[in-house]
């Protein structure tokens, strides 16, 4: 097994989940209705929990402990896709991001249930219930609001158009793509993107939303190599505030 290849895969997944988990948790206490506030916060917590599990696998492969990895790196050392770090705006933006990201995330984990690196395959089997909920939540809202009123449709469409180039950045190929495929670790970003597109299309089909033509969109890439938007560093500063004052603090 190519350790560098698996580490690269683990890092980008963990960083995606930690950063989006943190971003989505900013809605806690401010969700559009109480029940949705609770659901969105719970899913954010799930994401942070999944990132911890992945950082623990990395620790077993010789990387530093999860807290050090999560709280002491700078933006340039993070491998999350840029879509996960973009600041929240109106709720429609966060909901569409949740739909686009979680569809890809759930499919990635599903592919990893057959990963040759057993600890990751076991983790993928374990979190499948959480992922089922995340996609059920996203799909149900998108189907509902995607055919509800002129305002809900135009809001979602606007966010969809805005987020699509960033969503495509989730599938930025890894330098180890060939190794991952050859070693039976992961079927690759191209296969994932294809499945993702089919899944997105089938959810959007019964709605009034139009999927932008992906052939005409230039994906926003760079996140996997540590090239980020100006929005990531302020997020990291806030997230690591307590850790930097007292690394042993429990709260």
């Amino acid at each position, binding site marked *: 097994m190519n350790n560098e290849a698996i580490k690269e895969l683990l890092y980008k997944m963990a960083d995606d989940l930690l950063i989006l988990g943190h971003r989505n948790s*900013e809605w806690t206490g*401010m969700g559009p*209705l*109480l*029940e*949705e506030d*609770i*659901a969105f916060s*719970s*899913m954010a917590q799930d994401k942070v*929990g999944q990132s911890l599990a992945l950082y623990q696998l990395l620790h077993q492969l010789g990387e530093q402990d999860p807290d050090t990895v999560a709280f002491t790196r700078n933006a340039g050392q993070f491998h999350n896709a840029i879509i996960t770090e973009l*600041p*929240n*705006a*109106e709720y429609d933006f966060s909901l569409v991001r949740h739909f686009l990201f979680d569809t890809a995330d759930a499919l990635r984990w599903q592919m990893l249930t057959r990963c040759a690196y057993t600890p990751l395959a076991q983790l993928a089997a*374990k*979190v*499948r*219930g*959480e992922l*089922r*909920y995340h996609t*059920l*939540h996203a799909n*149900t*809202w998108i189907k*509902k609001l995607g055919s*509800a009123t002129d305002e809900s449709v135009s809001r979602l469409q606007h966010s969809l158009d805005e987020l699509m180039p960033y969503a495509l950045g989730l599938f930025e190929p890894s330098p180890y793509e060939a190794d991952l495929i050859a070693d039976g670790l992961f079927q690759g970003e191209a296969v994932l993107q294809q499945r993702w597109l089919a899944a997105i299309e089938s959810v959007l089909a019964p709605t009034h939303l139009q999927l932008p033509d992906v052939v005409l969109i230039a994906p926003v890439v760079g996140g996997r190599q540590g090239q980020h938007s100006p*929005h990531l560093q*302020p997020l990291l500063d806030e997230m690591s505030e307590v850790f930097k004052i007292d690394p042993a603090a*429990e709260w």
Partner: protein
Amino acid sequence: MVHSLDPRVGRLPTIGTPGMVVPKVPLDQLGTFEVFVQPKEGKPFQHEGIVHAPDLELAYVLAKETFTRRFTCTSLYVVETRHVYVSPTTEGGVSVAAVLPAITGPDGEPLSFELFMLPKRGKQHVHIGTVMATLPQEAMHRGFQQNLHGGKTVYNLWAVRTTDIRFTTPEEKELWLTLPEKKFRDAAEYKGGDKLKAFLEKQRP
């Protein structure tokens, strides 16, 4: 307009209309749905509470985190509030069976109904079984005839058409797979009192 990276600043609602005095707009409230939870395999479903939602499917989605994000859960279902039929309530050891009006109304094709009894005032309604009937009232009578209440005093009885319920599918049972590990959501597990005490001890000179 304040520009800030903090999303909470940009999200503050606008209040009032410039140059005008206008009546306050009523709140846009969603309908309500009743939530039933099965805490453990083999245990009956019990009424856990109510959620606001735009439709039955979203009620299911929102009920999952509102009522089953702590403790244990193996299954969940929801029904629109207006689809729950409620018997008269009794007290002092008198069973609903004694005050239930006689069956009236035309005969029709029998449908499946779920029955939920209140075993004690202030407790939750608990599922006691399924009966075939044409009307909710008839379903309640059938429940007593079949002794679904096990001879206990029933203080209140609910009847719900089975087809009005959004159940958990067999595949969806995995939704609660990792729930037993989420102890951090349990206030008792967090031991807030101990943490506070330790902190205060540390502050003492």
